[in-house]
């Protein structure tokens, strides 16, 4: 078996966060891959939902995006935003929202709208369902590449709220529980129960704490003991490589 890639560690870490029986709204890419891995292993009764109106899809071919017919193959329900985002998410039934991001800050606020590079403003895709998921899911997991500029003290644009200003969610008027994990190619981060600031949960094997700190734009809380992120098992790797993303469309990328 070839060397374990960072994306495989990320995806396995994401899968391990998901429990059986959960309802999960997933974005395209690594979130979706993590969700299928969980479903193929410890969470067979997990229900993945796509915002466009899909429940429990079992794609056979790798899709290029959320609007690609490949992603909703063998679903058990096709509906629309109103059912998935209204009657599940807004109803408070979504256990986990699983998102990507351009930037995430220390309070788990997410930017998917714009970047400011060298003073130049560039716009990206915006929220789509991201703000809704971040506002309403019981907990939110973000999966992204670990770079200093992508993990700033404060996001350039607060598209989707975390613990805004370090405040508790209820005080913000938000129903969902807010950010739970940021999973990167270097580490898994969580949020402090008291001050709601990002805190290190585990380091991926082979990654130094210094490396993480040097590549994190915000002050990261570090507990006394930092465990290692469990590596994907041989069976998980087999599933990922042979069944879930055999062409490495998502696993082959730097995310």
């Amino acid at each position, binding site marked *: 078996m070839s060397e374990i890639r960072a994306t495989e560690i990320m995806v396995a870490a994401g899968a391990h966060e998901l429990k059986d029986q959960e309802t999960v709204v997933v974005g395209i890419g690594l979130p979706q891959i993590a969700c299928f891995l969980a479903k193929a292993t410890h969470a067979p009764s997990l229900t993945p939902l796509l915002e466009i109106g899909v429940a429990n899809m079992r794609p056979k071919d790798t899709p290029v*995006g959320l609007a690609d*017919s490949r992603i909703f193959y063998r679903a058990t329900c096709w509906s629309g935003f109103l059912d998935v985002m209204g009657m599940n998410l*807004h109803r408070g039934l979504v256990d986990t929202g699983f998102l990507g991001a351009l930037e995430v800050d220390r309070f788990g606020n997410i930017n998917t709208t714009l970047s400011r590079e060298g003073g130049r403003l560039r716009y990206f895709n915006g929220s789509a369902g991201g703000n809704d998921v971040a506002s309403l899911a019981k907990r939110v997991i973000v999966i992204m590449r670990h770079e200093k500029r992508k993990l700033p003290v404060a996001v350039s644009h607060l*598209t989707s709220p975390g613990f805004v200003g370090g405040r508790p969610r209820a005080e913000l008027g938000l129903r969902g529980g807010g950010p739970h994990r940021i999973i990167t190619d270097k580490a898994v981060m969580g949020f402090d129960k008291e001050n709601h600031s990002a805190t290190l949960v585990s380091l991926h094997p082979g990654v130094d704490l210094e490396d993480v700190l040097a590549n994190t734009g915000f002050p990261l809380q570090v507990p006394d003991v930092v465990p290692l992120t469990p590596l994907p098992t041989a069976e998980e790797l087999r599933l990922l490589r042979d069944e879930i993303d055999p062409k490495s469309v998502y696993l082959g990328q730097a995310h």
Partner: protein
Amino acid sequence: MSEIVATVPNGAHIALGGFAIARNVITIVHELIRQQKRDLVVSQGVAGLDTDLLVGAGLVARLIIGGGSLDRFGPVHCINRARETGSLLFEDWTSLSLCFRYLAGALGLSFIPIKSLIASEILERLERGPGAGDVKPMQCPFTGESYIALSALTPDVSFVHVQTADADGNCRIDGPRWENEEQAKAAKRLIVVAETIVPTEEIQRQPERTIIPGHRVEAVIHQPFGAHPTAVFGCYDYDAAHLKLYVEHSKRAERIGDYIGTYIRGTKDHREYLEKSGGLAHLAALKADPVLGY
């Protein structure tokens, strides 16, 4: 077809039923461009090639969208560039908030409450932009819970691309429907483009599949491959080569005109456009497998 599009006045609020690279109303968008409409207000849950083209062609004065994407083919360059240069009024919403606004419109409610947007910069920007009159904090009259009230969205004309309709406009939509139903039923006028026209007897065999009943529909346009180069589930796949070609052009302000000149202004109707885009042999290769649906 061109007569129907001719009835859309400049300055109208149109809503498009596409999502990223799926079921875009390309037939309609091309004809709007050929007819050089002006000052359109465009609303859509997640914009794709359709709205990107309208913006690239300079027809749009104001955008009301929840997001935009060409999936892995790229971002909606024309839209993003227009935001960067400030060449149009821009309202950035979310999938659910726009869906709720259409739902309110469809139900004849002038407002609807929501628990999204709260504490975000999306809300802040709406409150100080052209959407300022469409969001307002409010409280539940029973529980006192805080909500954001959203105003109803009632487009002047909604356009939706569907797989199947009968001549009376009874429509089936296969695959996920994003905000199609609410958007269609919120509109003052509704125009449908269908891949296939079936006899009403076929509609009557499975009336539970009618998502939009015919009496809501002003006109049905029959146009096979009418969403090309975007995908129509069960009918054809997206045209990856054409989408790449589009993104090559759309990513530079100076090149999008070439694409529009060649494929839209340089063709007199959708048939000529399809011919220029590769013709029958090329389209045949995109046809969906009947089991897979793509």
